[in-house]
């Protein structure tokens, strides 16, 4: 869906028909080139002050999109603007206004301490020298790393590294922030703290684009969500709107042991069934069947599953995760 036109540059983040192709080559002597389209015609528009979630499975193109926005990758085609500045023509203007916080534990100078990690970037972001010390103290306080300033980063836990990433992203107080899977690999308590800081930043008026593949994360903090699959946006709206797309559905969960492939095929063909997702657990399988509301499935299901050991069958309300699963599996 094309974003509304913003002639005056009203949007904080504006992506129009973004495409990005990677060229990889295989073979040593007879090099064989392969083009991989990571993002194929993606458009989105985030107004100032919004916390926008980009949701999608691994390899859907989330990170590529965010790296184009952060001026680390050039788009193959399309227009990408941050606060009205084009990432191709005015990378420097974009860089002054954005902070990029990526997930995982890379991206820090392991052998240096936390303050040294920040100090260098304070200069690279042209922060007034006499304010640097105070500012570093401030962001360390904000992310809850006070008292650990002089420790080498290699001794930091993943959660602490994530907070240091956050501190670096906030150092120059940018109006636009990008978070790339900021809670990946962080323990539940740490992840909740990271989400809390993200929400607080949003309340303080920052424009935030966040990628994640955790549904509840998007559901709990984002004001607007886009689901991206195979390089394209397949749905966009508030979490409630996305949920309502599946609200007129009923979800049946069946836990069973050793369901044969043909039976799965037959379930998919049942009248009223919209999608079927199979999750393999330790020994059992969890079938999540989304169907049109009012489709009396249970009896027909059990008929098909005759001879299979069924642990439980349950009906439940659709969640954002169901909306997501149905979007990325059908797309």
């Amino acid at each position, binding site marked *: 869906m094309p974003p509304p036109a913003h002639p005056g540059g009203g949007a904080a983040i504006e992506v129009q028909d973004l495409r990005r192709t*990677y*060229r990889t080559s295989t073979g040593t002597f007879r090099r064989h080139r392969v083009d991989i389209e990571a993002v194929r015609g993606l458009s989105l528009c985030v107004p100032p002050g919004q916390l926008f979630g980009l949701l999608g499975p691994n390899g859907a193109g989330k990170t590529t999109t965010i790296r184009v926005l*952060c*001026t*680390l*990758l*050039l788009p193959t085609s399309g227009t990408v603007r941050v606060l009205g500045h084009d990432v191709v023509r005015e990378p*420097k203007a974009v*860089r*002054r206004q*954005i902070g*990029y916080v*990526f997930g*995982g534990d*890379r*991206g*820090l*100078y*392991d*052998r*240096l301490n936390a303050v*040294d990690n920040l*100090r*260098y*970037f304070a*200069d*690279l*972001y*042209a*922060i*007034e*020298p006499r*304010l640097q010390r*105070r*500012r570093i103290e*401030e*962001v360390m*306080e*904000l*992310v*809850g790393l006070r008292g650990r300033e002089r420790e080498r980063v290699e001794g930091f836990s993943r959660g602490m590294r994530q*907070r240091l990433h956050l501190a*670096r992203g*906030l150092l*120059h*107080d940018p109006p636009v922030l990008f978070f790339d899977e900021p809670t990946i690999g962080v323990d539940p308590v740490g992840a909740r*703290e990271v989400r*809390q*800081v993200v929400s*607080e*930043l949003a*309340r*303080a008026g920052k424009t935030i684009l966040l990628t994640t593949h955790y549904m509840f994360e998007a559901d709990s903090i984002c004001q607007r969500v886009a689901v991206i699959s195979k390089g394209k946006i397949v749905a966009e709206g508030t979490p409630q709107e996305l949920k309502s797309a599946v609200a007129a559905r009923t979800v049946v969960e069946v836990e069973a042991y050793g369901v044969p492939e043909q039976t799965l095929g037959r379930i998919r063909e049942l009248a009223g069934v919209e999608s079927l997702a199979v999750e393999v657990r330790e020994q059992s399988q969890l079938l999540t069947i989304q169907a049109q509301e009012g489709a009396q499935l249970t009896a027909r299901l059990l008929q098909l599953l005759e001879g299979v050991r069924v642990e439980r069958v349950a009906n439940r309300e659709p969640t954002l995760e169901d909306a997501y699963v149905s979007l990325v599996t059908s797309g």
Partner: protein
Amino acid sequence: MSAAQRVPAQGLFRTLPAPLTWPRITLSGWWFQLKMQAQSGFLIMTALVQPLIFASIAMADQQAGNRTLPLLYYALGAGIMGIWSTVVFGCGGALSWQRHQGTLEPLVMAPAPLVLVLLGITLGTATVGLYSMSATLFWGWAVFHAHVDIADPGAFCLAALATVVALGLLGLVMGSSFVLYRNSSAISNAIEYPVWLITGLLVPLSLLPGWTHPLAYILAPTWGVQALRSAALGGDPWLPLLWCLVASLGYLLLGVFLVANVERLARQRASLNWQ
């Protein structure tokens, strides 16, 4: 974690015109690189042990041979060999380490000009190379009983400084390729010996085939070692010193040009991260 609201601070940014912030960015990068290197045994080895070994080989050969050139001649050459090695390996190593650690991306993403970030790194590595100069001189004096009488100490210090800056800037020219190619150590490995050989650091230029001379003239080590030798052994250090500066200026301009293009290429080819 506490509230985010109190973060915005007035006057957080320097209001100076951009060019006036450049020296601080470069110096800060230079100091940062020195700190990083203090943590790395690798560079100490390249800067310290390796030049001593080459100096020993050269001086041992000289003592066994025809003794036409003074030992100090070799000690100085070996010292510059050390600076060159630190620059090619230190700079390439620093950048591939940054790439691997994932810190190259934040550096590129910062609004500071990338060329200054790289300049800080290359000047930092070249500065470490000063160790090798002092070490080879000391080694020559202590082990091989070389006469370390510097004819013109002032000119000598100036020449040493100019050599470090020139080699750092030459490193900048190469640094641009290190940003682009993941296998930067291939470049380092391939250019270490050839530059040692053709710039006359241990082997006098007159012994080398004539076609190598033009190459030698555009490489700063050629002029740096001549300036140092003239200042130490007696002679006119100022002409080679001047050429050293001219070469430096050339490298700086070339570096600025290359880095600007390389940054663009790297964003196109997605080569900033480690894959």
